[in-house]
């Protein structure tokens, strides 16, 4: 390990999402929809020399107990349109949009990302996500038409077809596949990056295989060094089967962070943040997602319910499931018993994402440690405040990473591929 040159860290900034990680009750919390909030966060990330700025997506408002979930931030703009506007007020930072491969057609996607890549002079990225639920499908022409098993085959063919469109010259594309039978060419030349960067989010076995075959960046969630190392090793090992080297896929887990002047102060602030993220009603709402029944009379400051969950409930819609409800309940009960936690304390304990908590020096050290020990190639940082949540990190942690010699002091190239150290693809290969 000591003989190896220091790995360079990749960093991205995630605009705070429509979930309870985002604290809207803080007096410093600004608009989640006005352009100036996006401008502030993107420009802050660019000041910190980040690789890219990231926008998530959800095509139907989340529901809970048959009603729109009202406890978290709700509402967001259309990602690609915001990124085109941000291209006007930034110069180097990459611009990543999450766009669903199920409810979009490859020709239009290829054209929209080619346009973003041209209009940003080579900074576009597509985070490919899939869904098949009829709930989201109710907003679209086809409805919930796709079998769950076909989600990834459609996504893979979508990416492949988009790349064919990006590569095609005057002769255009003729494509016949299981999901698409199309013919045509774009109204734009090949994008400046050749192919806009492809990001994949998802942790299932088929998701990992899709990433190894197709993606330039994996957006994942792993909370411990060991879990990160296992994921890193597994995904990098899969690359060889596709003729790809380990450097051709960057692994970037999402991570939150809380800073303080000292470690103790940071820990205190982190506790406050977690309590703001999981208020009494939010704790009950999480509980209901697992139990699948109405628990509005349950005391959030009391123990977990004694009844077992209803495993077939569709009480929560449009959100990521926790897994098999009975197994989750069993695990939660064990943790609550061991640590003597109330319902709310338990939810605070089990729903936390990976967090770097400490003084700037501690956090810089933790991030560097994860990367040098191959638990990640970098991180997608998720601030909990809009739009100022990244300011402190950029002002205090980035300089320390730069001093360590593990993070760029300036951009070395104009495109996102340059920042990520990815080559421009040769047309017709891969």
């Amino acid at each position, binding site marked *: 390990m000591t003989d190896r040159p220091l790995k360079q860290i990749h960093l991205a900034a995630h605009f705070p999402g429509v979930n309870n990680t985002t604290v*809207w*009750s803080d007096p410093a919390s600004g608009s989640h*929809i*006005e*352009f100036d909030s996006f401008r502030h966060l993107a420009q802050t990330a660019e000041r910190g020399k980040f690789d890219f700025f990231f926008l998530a997506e*959800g*095509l*139907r*408002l989340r529901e809970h107990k048959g*009603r*729109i979930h*009202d*406890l*978290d*931030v*709700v*509402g*967001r*703009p*259309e990602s*690609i*349109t*915001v990124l*085109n*506007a941000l*291209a*006007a*007020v930034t110069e180097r930072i990459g611009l990543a949009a999450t766009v669903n491969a199920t*409810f*979009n*057609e490859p*020709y*239009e996607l290829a*054209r*929209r990302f080619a*346009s973003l890549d*041209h*209009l*940003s*002079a080579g900074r576009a990225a597509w985070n490919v996500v899939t869904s098949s639920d009829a709930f989201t499908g*109710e*907003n*679209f*022409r086809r*409805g919930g038409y796709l079998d769950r098993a076909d989600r990834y085959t459609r996504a893979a063919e979508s990416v492949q077809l988009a790349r064919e469109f990006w590569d095609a010259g005057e002769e*255009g594309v003729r494509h016949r596949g299981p999901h*698409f*039978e*199309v*013919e*045509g*060419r*774009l*109204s*734009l*030349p090949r994008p400046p990056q050749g192919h806009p960067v492809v990001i994949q989010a998802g942790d299932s076995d088929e998701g990992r295989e899709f990433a190894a075959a197709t993606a330039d960046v994996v957006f994942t969630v792993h909370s411990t060094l060991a879990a990160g190392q296992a994921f890193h090793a597994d995904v990098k090992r899969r690359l060889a089967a596709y003729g790809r080297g380990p450097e051709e896929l960057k692994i970037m887990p999402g991570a939150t962070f809380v800073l303080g002047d000292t470690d103790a102060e940071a820990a205190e602030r982190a506790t406050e943040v977690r309590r703001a993220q999981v*208020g*009494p*009603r*939010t704790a009950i709402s999480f509980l209901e997602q697992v139990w699948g029944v109405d628990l509005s009379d349950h005391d959030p400051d009391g123990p977990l319910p004694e009844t077992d969950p209803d495993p077939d409930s569709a009480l929560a819609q449009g959100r990521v499931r926790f897994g098999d409800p009975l197994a989750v309940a069993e695990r939660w009960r064990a943790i609550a018993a061991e640590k003597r936690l109330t319902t709310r304390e338990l939810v605070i304990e089990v729903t936390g994402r990976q967090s770097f908590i400490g003084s700037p020096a501690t956090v810089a050290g933790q991030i560097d440690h994860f990367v040098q020990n191959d638990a990640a190639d970098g991180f997608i940082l998720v601030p909990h405040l809009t739009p100022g949540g990244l300011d402190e990190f950029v002002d205090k942690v980035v300089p320390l990473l730069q001093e360590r010699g593990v993070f760029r002091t300036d951009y070395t190239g104009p495109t996102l591929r340059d920042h990520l150290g990815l080559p421009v693809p040769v047309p017709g290969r891969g």
Partner: protein
Amino acid sequence: MPRQLHLSAALDSPDSPGRFNAGHYTALAGLAERATLDFVTLDDSFDPEPGRPDALAALARIAPLTGRVGLVPTVTTTHTEPFHTSISVNTLDWVSKGRAGWLVGVSTTEAEARAFGRRPVAPADELWAEAADAVEVAARLWDSWEDDAEIRDTATGRFIDRDKLHYIDFEGRHFSVRGPSITPRPPQGRPVVAVPVAAADLAPDASPGGRARVAAAIRHADVVLLDAPDRDARLTAATELRLRAGEHLRILARLDTARSALPDRAAEERLLAELTATGTGVDGFHLVPADPVRDLTALADRIAPALRAAGLLRTGYTGRTLRDHLGLARPAGRYTAPPAAAAAAPALALAEVTR
């Protein structure tokens, strides 16, 4: 004092080598703002020719670099999802702080149908009927969030008042959409909807496609871009449109400056005579330059000052949104209960909207 003109211009640049780059559109929009135009348009389709970027993307790209001019991309409704179109136009309104419009288009060609591979080419009347449905869906989705839906009530832990978010439950021949939108109501309430109409579409012997296009315009348009071969046809068509759609409709006649060759002083005089003529029946003009850089420069440097001297053009922007420029009120949301006191709306000041 004469009534001021509503002027707009197309930025389409099929022959410009810069047409894939942002700087080209930024420079043109800067000229349009110097000419204090109401808005600029950028055309689009899924045909590979002419070469161009996605129009809504290009106008979003220049939104932060412009301050006042309206931004009106063509967005087609045949191979696209109404939900995506609604949130994209909505977002253009957010990033431009209330300057977005939508020039509605349809896809009629084989090439476009094959690029998607989802459905064969359909007749124009069917496509325009579908376009009208797509605008209906978009408008309902824009209204699906009441303006004050975001409450941030820390006492109850609620970010929104979900009673102010509404399912739209649209069911049409080609699609159904449940809603509500994922994007809050845009600054203008509803971005400006523009529909292109040809004078022939209003003639007694109009084609089914033309009739369907007129029907879509009458039902949904805030602005009609009217293409007429001569002044008589323009007056007849504009009178008919106003009669059927109502006085709120803004009608801008297409003026092609290709024939005018603007650097030529005589051509400029002819264009000025056209713009200042009375009794045209229209509210203004949509200029379609053959060479946008050349012609918009002439517009900003010479034509606009001459119009201002005649009292026919604003000397500077007085409003901030495209609706302000067009003299169109911000609409109330269709799902918002009217305040009891305001139930009796004041009578429309007809003198304000009639030329």
